[in-house]
């Protein structure tokens, strides 16, 4: 929780990790990918304030104590959603698995939500693992990384028939939230890997599921906006928007926020620190302090007040994940409904 100028913010970090990317976890023969992946993440951290940069060694493997301090003690977060990323072709025990997250999280009851994942290329066996994970960890959400390599394949799309089968199983198991993360390598490689039209189709066909597009579809923010504005069940995951732009490129941060507020709206944007890429503390504090610049260039963008920031920092995600929010952190009368879907279709004909 965070309090500033008399306003109280309940903070849900809806996108964070507990990874091991140290050399002891690299798959022999795939070291260059394991190393390249974590170095790429580390470069993203370089976009945050210099005082929050870590050494690569610390970044490769941080401790449970580091996480608890950075996220909860210092970072103002009330509840955090673990988003696993397996990458088992490169990391022996996986980069950041559901099991690893749960092993750590069970020592801190009430702090974590365990999302799991699936990969349509894993077939029947994968569906069994998904069922087991939902049973064991109570997962209400999954993180899908469509560019993951798997037995010679460089990725998949949500519209693949095998993926639809998994989405049907999600509905059956009570999974509500599908976090989609696009990456650079999708088969076939001659197509744009970041295209979000498959999310559009799946969101239309699975109305009971919420599709949270992580990193707001970066680097295809425009395609994401044009799609999201037409789909009542598509949300914008802000991980990387705040961490990657608010400090490094404040003017573009304001413009991207303006675009998202216009096309998607404050009811459908969720904060995620992407820890350990960035610590939540400076992101939460900076975002609460942030205001749309009061100059002509930004004049036709919607404004964001304290109520809107409360939704984005926590109340929207709390609604998606049925997290109890103490009364003092909830919105007052007339301040709107977090995660409301009826404000969608903001821009007709987009």
């Amino acid at each position, binding site marked *: 929780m965070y309090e500033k100028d008399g306003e109280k913010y309940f903070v849900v970090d809806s996108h964070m990790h507990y990874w091991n990317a140290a050399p002891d976890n690299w798959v022999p023969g795939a070291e*260059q*990918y394991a190393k*390249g*992946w974590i*170095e*790429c993440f*580390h*470069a*993203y951290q*370089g*976009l945050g304030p210099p005082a929050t940069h870590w050494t690569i060694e610390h970044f490769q493997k941080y401790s449970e104590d580091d996480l608890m301090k950075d996220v909860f003690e210092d970072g103002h977060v009330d509840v955090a959603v673990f988003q696993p990323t397996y990458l088992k072709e490169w990391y022996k025990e996986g980069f950041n698995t559901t099991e690893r997250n749960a092993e750590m999280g069970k020592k801190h009851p009430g702090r974590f939500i365990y999302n799991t994942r699936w990969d349509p290329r894993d077939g029947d066996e994968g569906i069994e693992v998904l069922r087991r994970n939902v049973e064991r960890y109570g997962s209400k959400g999954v993180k899908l990384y469509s560019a993951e390599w798997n037995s010679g394949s*460089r990725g998949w799309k949500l519209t693949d028939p095998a993926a639809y089968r998994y989405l049907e199983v999600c509905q059956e198991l009570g999974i509500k939230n599908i976090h989609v993360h696009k*990456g*650079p*390598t999708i*088969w*076939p*490689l*001659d*197509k*744009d*890997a*970041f295209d979000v039209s498959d999310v559009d189709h799946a969101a239309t066909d699975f109305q009971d599921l919420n599709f949270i597009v992580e990193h707001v579809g*970066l*680097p*295809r*923010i*425009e395609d994401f*906006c*044009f799609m999201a504005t037409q789909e009542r069940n598509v949300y914008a995951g802000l991980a990387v928007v705040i961490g*990657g*732009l608010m400090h*490094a*490129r404040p003017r*573009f941060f304001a*413009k*991207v926020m303006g*675009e998202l507020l*216009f*096309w998607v709206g404050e009811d459908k944007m969720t904060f995620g620190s992407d820890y350990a890429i960035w610590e939540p503390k400076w992101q939460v504090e900076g975002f609460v302090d942030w205001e749309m610049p009061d100059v*002509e260039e930004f004049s036709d963008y919607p404004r964001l007040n304290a109520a809107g920031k409360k939704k984005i920092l926590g109340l929207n995600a709390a609604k998606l994940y049925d997290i109890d929010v103490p009364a003092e952190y909830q919105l007052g009368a007339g301040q709107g409904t977090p995660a409301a879907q009826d404000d969608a279709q903001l*821009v007709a*004909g*987009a």
Partner: protein
Amino acid sequence: MTAPLTAGSRSAAPGGHSATPGDPRGPRQATPGDPPGPRQPGAPRVLQALAAVRDPELDEPITSLGFVASCTLSADGEASIRLRLPTYFCAPNFAFLMVADAYDAVSALAGVRRTEVVLEDHFASAAINGGVAARAGFARSFDGEAVGELHQLRADFLRKAVMAGTDQVCRPLLAAGTEPPALRAMTLGDVPGSRALDRLRQRRAELGLPAGDDAPLLIDPATGAPVRDDAVPLHLRRARTTRISIEANSGICRGMLRHRYDTAGLGEEDQ
């Protein structure tokens, strides 16, 4: 003998990363007897050719983005170029296009007998460098992983560039008081000349879209058809979002590149 133009130290270039062709910033090692690199005939010409190669996604020259790590031209016409990207996992299709375009731009120069372009530090370096050197095309370079060449991908991104360029051209007009419906009646010839306008015309021409003085200012970049009256506000809105998306990505890419390499690229410009 080869006199390289090499990337300059970032710390030696405070206040910017600009290095103009033939005038790289930063300290450089020169072997006694070598002619000074910047005056070596050829290498500035190579850099100039590379300045015409764009990142198709960001619609900016690979030089100003800082992607050119070094380029040399030997006395007997061997050009050697090293490129670098913001991350190890940048999309391989765009990376391939940049390497292939760099190869084509440099090998077309008079006096260049042989061209080598090497993409460094990328997960698909071997496939890309080998494929471009063998002039194999994308699908053959990524055997079994691609079904076609990259023309469609390139055209898709040129259309985005046209949308972004539409915002760059229209925004000053709107700020000066032109109403959106009036933009619809305007032709490219009605717009005061600017770099943004030249660029928009060039991108439209590359796509085979009307780009002459009598062509409408507002067109659908997929079909070339004029934008309908009632569609103008949404068209302008989409143009703006597309521009912001590209510029925000460009900002992130520059930041990542800077974290990855502590030297400025040849011709790198801060934005």
